[in-house]
């Protein structure tokens, strides 16, 4: 693909001069500092959202009401989703983009550093607003993260707080997306044509376009909710000629591309890691780019598969069923290419590779259950059961989140300059992988047996698998403390990592700078052939 002929880092270390004090972070414009803040923020949100998940699993450990009233349970379900999607997974990907895209394309920084600062610092305010709503007299939002009217309109004082929090999160991710697009299109090192771009950058470029296409649609939908509630409009109010079902159509027009926003960067990460630890170039690089673009295009025309049961003409159901199944083709191309990259490779199993392999297997399970859900007559059975919960947690937890962990284990030595504790990281991997399956696999059985989602109590016939799932949940939750411990240990010190870090011949520009990456890198653009 490409080789690097110059190493621009000189010995005088002027490139390592950092601003001091709290101002370094408050007024940060350095892509590495902002990337770090994004990653730390998303880690905190991951634990807050995780605590809510454990509250849910504790309540569901056995039938009957244990700890909370149903209203609080609903608040936990709603906020768990909002925090994990907008607070944990999306900022983690933006943090990785901030850290790695300039290093991968040989740019000195992101194209718009000041906007980069704004887009990060909006987030703490957004989540203070969202989480603060839990302490209002009527409690936090409890109508589900999808905010369907009329239920969401009945949530009291938390309603406008949730709406404005969503507006802020949207503004933040739109700014982040614009930054990524301008950086990738304008700041590539000379000679790096688009089809030499690392796949992580490619998937992020496409994700960024998805973000600016659909986050504003979500902003519009929640604005309509707001004006329906406070200004007497009737977008979704039948008394004034509106239709609540239309909210679902507009919401899922955002919502389906959103699930690809949550997974495409993960595809990019896995496409970086598997070639490294297979010691082979990526099989079918061009096909991977086109597959990503096809998935992004298809994501815009499948939204109604989230709402087959609200009623639509047969032709509509057929269209949305077929187009949804079509997505399996480019996704299949990707899974095929990852597998083929490993074929006859010199595999080794360091923690990033382990997480990438778990991603490959477990994401595919989530993909298959997605295909089952796409079948209209079957969907009438699965709709709003734990089968759906199992499906989207398989694609998001051992899918998106495992890919984020793989990325952290892959690039952490480049960030800290030290090698982390491999043994502990492998423990983290094995405990997480076993427990995540104990946690989510039984939910398939519960769903097929008819257990509905979003309820705090259930029929006694569902007890056994719920207990198993809760045990898995607690083990998975607490095993993430190992992850944090590995990172803290590595930040504090450890055996120094080389510039290449991994014992493999990787083409990426990020491996041409020393570890830790100097504060200012690529002041002069590298040469890429």
């Amino acid at each position, binding site marked *: 693909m490409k080789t690097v002929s110059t190493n621009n880092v000189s010995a005088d270390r002027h490139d390592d001069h950092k601003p001091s004090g709290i101002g370094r972070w408050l007024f940060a414009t350095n892509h590495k500092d902002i990337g770090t803040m994004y990653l730390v923020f998303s880690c905190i949100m991951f634990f807050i959202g995780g605590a809510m998940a454990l509250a849910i699993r504790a309540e569901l450990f056995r039938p009957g009401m244990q700890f909370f009233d149903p209203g609080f349970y609903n608040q936990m379900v709603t906020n768990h989703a909002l925090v994990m999607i907008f607070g944990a997974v999306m900022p983690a990907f933006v943090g990785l983009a901030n850290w790695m895209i300039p290093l991968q394309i040989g740019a000195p920084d992101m194209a*718009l550093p000041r906007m980069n600062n704004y887009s990060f610092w909006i987030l703490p305010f957004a989540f203070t607003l969202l989480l603060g709503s839990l302490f209002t007299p009527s409690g936090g939002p409890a109508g589900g993260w999808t905010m369907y009217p009329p239920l969401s309109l009945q949530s009291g004082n938390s309603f406008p707080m949730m709406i404005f929090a969503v507006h802020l999160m949207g503004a933040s991710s739109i700014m982040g997306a614009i930054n990524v697009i*301008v950086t990738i299109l*304008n700041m590539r090192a000379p000679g790096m044509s688009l089809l030499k771009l690392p796949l992580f950058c490619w998937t992020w470029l496409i994700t960024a376009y998805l973000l600016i296409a659909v986050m504003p649609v979500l902003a519009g939908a929640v604005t309509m909710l707001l004006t329906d509630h406070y200004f007497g409009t009737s977008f979704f109010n039948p008394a004034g000629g509106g*239709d609540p079902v239309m909210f679902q159509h507009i919401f899922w027009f955002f919502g389906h591309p959103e699930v690809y926003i949550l997974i495409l960067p993960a595809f990019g990460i896995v496409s970086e890691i598997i070639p490294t630890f297979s010691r082979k170039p990526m099989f079918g690089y061009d096909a991977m780019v086109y597959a990503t673009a096809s998935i992004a295009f298809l994501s815009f025309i499948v939204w109604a598969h989230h709402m087959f049961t609200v009623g639509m003409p047969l032709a509509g159901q057929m269209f949305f069923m077929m187009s949804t199944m079509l997505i399996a083709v480019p996704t299949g191309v990707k899974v095929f290419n990852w597998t083929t990259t490993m074929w006859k490779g010199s595999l080794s199993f360091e923690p990033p590779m382990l997480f990438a392999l778990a991603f490959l297997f477990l994401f595919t399970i989530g993909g298959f259950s997605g295909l089952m859900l796409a079948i209209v007559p079957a969907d009438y059975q699965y709709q709003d059961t734990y089968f759906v919960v199992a499906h989207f947690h398989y694609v998001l937890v051992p899918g998106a989140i495992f890919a984020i962990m793989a990325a952290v284990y892959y690039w952490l030595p480049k960030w800290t300059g030290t090698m982390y504790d491999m043994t502990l990281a492998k423990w983290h991997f094995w405990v997480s992988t076993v427990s995540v399956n104990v946690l989510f696999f039984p939910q398939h059985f519960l769903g097929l047996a008819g257990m509905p989602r979003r309820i705090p109590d259930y029929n006694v016939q569902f007890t056994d698998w719920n207990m198993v799932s809760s045990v898995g949940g607690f083990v998975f939750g607490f095993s993430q403390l190992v992850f944090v411990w590995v990172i803290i240990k590595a930040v504090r010190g450890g055996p120094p990592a080389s510039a290449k870090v991994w014992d493999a011949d990787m083409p990426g520009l990020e491996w041409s700078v020393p570890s830790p990456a100097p504060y200012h890198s690529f002041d002069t653009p590298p040469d890429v052939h």
Partner: protein
Amino acid sequence: MKQTSNRGLVMQLLLFTAGSFAFGFALVPLYSVLCQVWNTGNRWYGTQTAEASVIERPVTDRVVTVEFVANIPHAGAWEFKSQVPSIKVQPGKLYSTSFYARNLTDRAVVAQAVPSIAPQTIARYFRKTECFCFTPQNFSSGEGREMPVRFIVDPDLPLDVDRITLAYSFFDAPQVAAVSR
């Protein structure tokens, strides 16, 4: 390689974003048009306007059950019910029935009934010549009254349909003018 300046590209992308925001709102009329074209979605298309003229041509060998449902969506202070739960009708023949509503508050209220027909795909075969849902209804305090509906089921009603549900939701209509599609 030719490339746009950062400023130019940012302006393009901001324009793109603004376009997406506008598109979100444009979806509202867009869905209405598509639903009308495909005769789906909102179940009351054409159900809130009176038929100009209907010609009776009864189909004597076919019977369809029409069910009546009366809903009060919020905890409004209304009594609202259908005089009969259902009637058996012959397609092509004009029938009339009535709903009863009573204002349980001690002040005058304006109300609007919004009809809905199930199954939703046959709304256009259900024609009303008179209905209290066409206009907002004024009620003085404590007033109750019968409100008539006259309808005809089109003889072309698909053969697999033998049961039609006509449901009304009765809303307080402070911002009266509302409605009327």
